[in-house]
Structures are given as C-alpha cells and as structure tokens.
C-alpha cells in the first residue's frame, strides 16, 4: 500500500467517524493489500481519534486457492498472517478434500480456518458472532 493510499484511508476513516459515526465501518481493500498494512493504517488513525479496530478478516478463495498458492503465495500469506479470522470462501464450489489441503498448507500461518459459503450460509454465523 502506497503512502498516499494509506493517508487517504486514514483521512476517510476519520471523516466517517466525525461525520457519520456508524457502529461499524467496513473496509474492503484492494486485493493487493496485506493485513499488516491495514493494521498499520487503522493504528495511524487512532493517534487523534478514538474507535475500535478489528476484527481483521481474510477470505481465502477456495476455488482460486491452487492459483493463489502457486502464483501469489507471498500475497496470500501476507493476508492470512496477522488476520484475526481467516475463512475459506465459496466452499460450495470445492470438495472437502480441497479444504483439507488448504488447511494443511496454511496451518502454520494462521489460526483455524472457517469454511464459508454465502450460497448455503455455512460459516456465516461464526463470522457474524465476531462483529456482535
């Protein structure tokens, strides 16, 4: 994440806090942003305004995992490392043995994976509990 984007994000967080002050502010970053950068940005904003930070959620795309692991491993690991919650998304499009493979490859880099599917609702309750 470049400096201008980071400072722009901090400014936006502060603007929303001052003008709207919602209960929850969700940030949907570019696919190239890693979790450490998001933690740094939210910490920067805390220097002069008060809000809660987290959970920092990372979605690991189940169907895309083989590509991500072979071609974008550093980015993928940068997103799962430091995350408070890591979920494997689009579970309805992969087989259970694929999830075991993903678990095996990521277990040293993050906490337990939550299998997630918006299609059939699997895992949604687990994620929602983290924002309640």
């Amino acid at each position, binding site marked *: *994440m*470049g400096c*201008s*984007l980071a400072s*722009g*994000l901090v400014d*936006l*967080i502060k*603007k*929303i*806090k001052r003008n*709207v*002050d*919602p*209960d*929850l*502010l*969700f*940030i*949907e*970053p*570019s*696919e*190239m*942003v*890693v*979790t450490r950068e*998001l933690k740094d940005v*939210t910490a920067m904003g805390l220097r002069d305004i008060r*809000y*809660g*930070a*987290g*959970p*920092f*959620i*990372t*979605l*690991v*795309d189940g169907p*895309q995992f083989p590509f*991500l692991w072979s071609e*974008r491993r550093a980015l*993928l690991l940068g*997103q799962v490392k430091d*995350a408070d919650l890591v*979920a494997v*998304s*689009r579970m309805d499009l992969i087989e259970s043995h694929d999830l075991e493979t993903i678990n095996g490859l990521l277990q040293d880099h993050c906490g337990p994976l939550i299998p*997630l599917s*918006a299609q059939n609702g699997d895992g*949604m309750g687990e*994620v*929602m509990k983290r*924002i*309640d």
Partner: protein
Amino acid sequence: MRVVTVSGAGESGKTTLIREMVAHAGAAAKRSAVIVNEEGLIFYDDDFVKAHGLTVEYIRGG
C-alpha cells in the same frame, strides 16, 4: 465506531460478506459504513444503500 476489514483476492466474496454483515448489523439496529478500495465497479447498489442507510466511500489506489 469499530473498523472491520475484509481482505482477499478479487472474486473471493469480500463484497458479499460485507453485505451480509451490513444486513446482520442492520437487523440489530446498528448503522454501517463502507470504504471500498477497488476500482471500476459499483459494489453497493442504490437499493441496498437506501435499505440499510449505508454510507459508502470509494478510494483509489492499492
């Protein structure tokens, strides 16, 4: 206000999950806002924004 981030590859379901969380929060009378750092697409349609009183801001760069 609490900041919640959802990272992941394109098409991994970030928008879908955030929409679910916005709806879940709305059902508990909680207000939400979203900052989107993706370019070229409208992720949150007017009907959804109006229905949930959602504040949406877009920011470019990555």
